[in-house]
């Protein structure tokens, strides 16, 4: 059992380092899609970490939380991208309207 404990702790430490690298991508990413993709990757790693924690603490219900986490992170990506497409289209429409009014005044 000591062996399993050591393995789980090692896994948790490793995944926290990998998540840090993901965070660097999320900060650096030039486009919004880059950042969303990095957040999605971090979500995947957090899912593995929660599952490891469930086995480490020997608490089966933590896996339920992991399942809900998967659903919420999927929903977050879909909703955020839809919202951003909406914001972008609104911005383009506003810009076009301003250009149209400038053109009329000339």
């Amino acid at each position: 059992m000591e062996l399993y404990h050591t393995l789980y702790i090692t896994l948790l430490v490793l995944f926290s380092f990998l998540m840090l690298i993901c965070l660097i991508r999320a900060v650096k990413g030039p486009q919004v899609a880059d950042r969303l993709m990095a957040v999605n990757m971090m979500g995947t790693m957090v899912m593995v970490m929660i599952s490891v924690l469930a086995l480490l603490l020997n608490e089966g219900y933590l896996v339920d939380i992991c399942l809900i986490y998967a659903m919420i992170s999927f929903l977050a990506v879909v909703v955020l991208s839809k919202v951003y497409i909406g914001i972008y289209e609104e911005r383009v429409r506003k810009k076009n309207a301003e250009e149209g009014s400038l053109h009329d005044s000339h």
Partner: protein
Amino acid sequence: MTAIEWVRFLIGSLFLLIGIIMFITELYGVFHFKYVLNRMHAAAMGDTLAISACLLGLMIFSGFNFTTLKLFLIIVFLWFASPVSSHVLARLEIATNEKLSQHCEIYQDVSDLERELADRKKAEANSPADTAKEKEVSAL
């Protein structure tokens, strides 16, 4: 620990090792590629393959109980959710990037693409003959 427990431990750790190697490959790909649509290819691999390998290792550790079933449900859910989220992200990139033609070729019509691919294939079929002719000429 008995011999069977040792074998279980080793097989489980092997799967976890494969998963971590896949995660590291994913991160390398995400930093290696220069554009989002290329990076997405590397990121989708981690969402399905890497987490499947990791959870399979944990399932072997957990043994035959209800936790294993729930871990399997996570894998099944991610198999459905990951392609959809990748598709939505790609649509976001296509819809919002104004300088898309700098990063990839854009075809307004599928028939244009098919025509160009056919041309390329024809050119490839011709080019080996050309180089052979050139070789003959240079030999002469």
